[in-house]
């Protein structure tokens, strides 16, 4: 059994990631072009290339329990800047999804709650209903007041619609959720 620090190495992890996103992670030579361009790097617990290093080393648990994978918004600045064409933003998508599927403790539960609120809203209406998403997210975080002034201002400017814009064929949307293994 090989360990790095206290963590047992999972040598299948790199294949698991590479299979989900067709990519060759051995191409990353840790030049840190991704981290130096990332607008969120200063708030991350590990730089993007450190996450790639964890995958290369088989440190699955470490990689999946970082804040970094949740703070990444997929703006693609890193993927565009990588001299070797490693699609780092897409790797982050894959890591989040493995963390959810394998019930790893999520480092940023609030961000996941927000994503779930958005996906639920799409399930209900086929489109996103921003007011509902914000209300449900604030409720799930038990934080109803931090943005109340902003919410009221947006309502008064009609930036937030009270009623959702909806898809007519609700079953058509629901069937896509079933296909994706939700519900």
């Amino acid at each position, binding site marked *: 059994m090989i360990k790095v620090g206290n963590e047992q190495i999972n040598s299948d992890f790199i294949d698991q990631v590479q299979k*989900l996103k067709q990519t060759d992670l051995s191409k990353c030579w840790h030049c840190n072009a991704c981290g130096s361009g990332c*607008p*969120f790097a200063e*708030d991350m617990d590990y730089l993007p290339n450190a996450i790639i290093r964890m995958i290369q080393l088989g440190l699955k648990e470490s990689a999946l329990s970082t804040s970094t994978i949740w*703070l990444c*918004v*997929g*703006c*693609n*600045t890193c*993927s*565009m800047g990588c001299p070797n*064409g*490693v*699609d780092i*933003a*897409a790797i982050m*998508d*894959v890591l*989040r*999804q493995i963390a*959810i599927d394998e019930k790893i403790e999520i480092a*940023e539960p*609030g*961000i*996941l*709650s*927000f*994503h*779930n609120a*958005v*996906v639920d809203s*799409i399930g209900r209406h*086929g*489109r*996103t*209903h*921003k007011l509902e*998403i*914000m209300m449900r*997210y604030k409720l799930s975080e038990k934080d109803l007041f*931090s*943005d109340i002034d*902003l919410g009221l201002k*947006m309502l008064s*400017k*009609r*930036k937030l619609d009270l009623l959702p*814009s909806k*898809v*007519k*064929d609700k079953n*058509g*949307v629901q*069937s*896509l*959720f079933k*296909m*994706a293994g*939700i519900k």
Partner: protein
Amino acid sequence: MTRELEKEMSYFPGCSLATTAKENNASLNSFLHHFGIKLTEVPDWNCCGSSSTHSINSKLALGLAARNLFLAPKDKSMLIACPGCFLRLKHARMELNESKEKQHVFEDHFEKEYEPNLRLIHFFELLADMGDSGLFNHLTNRLNGLKVAPYYGCMLERPPSMNKEKSHYGLIEKIMASLGAEPIRWAFSNRCCGTFLSVSRPKIASKLVNRIMHGAIQAGSECIVTACAMCHLNLEIRCKSDNQLPVFHFSELLSIALEGKAPKEWLKRHLINPTQLLDQRQLSYHRLPLN
């Protein structure tokens, strides 16, 4: 060589333009209508599968995007205004074109034949064609030297698998200058606005937005012009009151140049009131009381 402009296109507005950014949608439609380009919404379109969905469920993101591709009329190009929607739909199209197996799965599901050659066109691509065709030649000097900071957000950033796609960098500058505005050079034109972290981690989004605003002010701009409705919203809601400039959707400034005025229905939806600036630059609008 410029392509002949299509006069009838199908149109994918996306959730933002249909709701929070109605002024973006209205100004875009009104602008294109003036040039005789008729847009018909993709019937019963749904969310493109952007940010949150592809962050946590790639299969669902592909399914949502695929439904839109299957709903779009095959004989027309599909115009997309939102850079996020454009990327998701293009990405889904690429994924389906690369895999016969996936195509068959969705063909069976939607009971329809897949059209691999459906043309997806971003608003910027259409604008570039329109500009090349000389359609804006009569609009010189319309914007009276308005100093604008062109803000593309992350629309210019594409994943490696899509790096052969057209880049529209420079288009805002080129068109704004041809309409008589003065595009300023600055360091933040493609810096991410923070997207959904604006709700789930507002401190981070605020920091990014205030840096962008500060950058535009320091560079001597009078306003920011955006390519993306989500960026527009974030810039307006997360900037500090002592560090802000009016923010226009690109389509709004195009319409102001064209019509010589902006309907108050658009301007009153702005959280940062742009009317004082339009006044200073003698650009007319339907007057609104200042906040």
